[in-house]
């Protein structure tokens, strides 16, 4: 039950993009079409879960016993960079098309604040190992869901005759704002 609450909380109530405003860069950057957004979601899910997991391990097996908590951010970034690099290698091997369409945004997952943010949050919330795993997973699902929804909306907007002044990123930002407003409706759901 607790896990379900964590999932609902991370997906809807504290959605990493629309409520915590983390990871907006890929959210705006690779949401041009649904398949790319799904790919980005999947890649980010992979990185998020893996980094939340290894962050917990590093924190509890290495940093805390040695009293090196001040190295937390530094070492997490190191881990995340490695995981992203690994993902990139893997994608390049398995799915050229996705690799190409994600382009620069794939290595940029490294600097995706959602990833570091989630890793740091799991430590701050003092989650257990399995809880932080679920938390990372929930955040990733929330991220992917919003990415796909937003990509759907943007695909539709591409066909709309948006006034030139607002077409492209501006209308995207307005839409993201409305989406964020909608997610306020889920406040205190859990």
């Amino acid at each position: 039950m607790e896990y379900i609450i964590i999932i609902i909380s991370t997906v809807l109530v504290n959605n990493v993009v629309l409520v915590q405003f983390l990871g907006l860069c890929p959210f705006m950057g690779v949401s041009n079409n649904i398949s790319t957004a799904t790919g980005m979601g999947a890649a980010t899910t992979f990185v998020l879960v893996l980094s939340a997991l290894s962050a917990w391990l590093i924190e509890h097996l290495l940093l805390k016993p040695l009293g090196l908590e001040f190295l937390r951010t530094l070492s997490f970034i190191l881990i995340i960079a490695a995981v992203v690099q690994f993902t990139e290698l893997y994608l390049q091997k398995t799915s050229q098309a996705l690799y190409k369409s994600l382009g620069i945004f794939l290595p940029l997952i490294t600097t995706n604040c959602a990833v570091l943010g989630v890793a740091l949050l799991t430590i701050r919330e003092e989650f257990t190992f399995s809880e932080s795993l679920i938390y990372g997973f929930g955040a990733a699902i929330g991220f992917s869901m919003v990415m796909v929804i937003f990509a759907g909306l943007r695909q539709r907007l591409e066909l709309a005759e948006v006034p030139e002044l607002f077409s492209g990123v501006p209308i995207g930002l307005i839409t993201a704002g409305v989406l964020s407003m909608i997610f306020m409706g889920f406040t205190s759901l859990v």
Partner: protein
Amino acid sequence: MITAIFVLTLMGLILGYLLGLAAKYFHVEADPIIEEISELMPGTHCGQCGFAGCGQAAEAIASGETEVTCCPPGGKQLAETLADKLGITINLDDIANEPLYANINSSECTGCTRCYKVCPTDAIVGANKQIHAVINAACTGCGACKTACPENCIDMLPEPIVLETWHWPKPIAA
């Protein structure tokens, strides 16, 4: 302090080693995109793009040295396909919509055979001292014959619209 340096160095080394292994394991052979692109090219090696042949052009396109719109025989359609393949956006308005094909003005043709010698697709027929003609279906519109013609009697014209080739225009904006 020493522990911190040690720990970070160790982490870096371990991760680096793992990544090195992964890189070896997931190694990808040369970029396959060049081959895919040269498959798409017209393959007539007409040279209008400024490269010696379609293969070289494909390499240049893949590496981004030249635009996907560089190929007149391929026209709008090729540019679109290539842009899709490379995941880039192009401005299609820059390309002439209608491809142009060679037409020999028979009153000025002297039958010098120069044009049909340069035609990459053998689209020009005729014999010495006889008026040449273009087989429209085989012409790529590369314009090599126009350059070669000493009488300047080859014009590049759009295909005339007849009932068979007519198709519906776009509805007036709604």
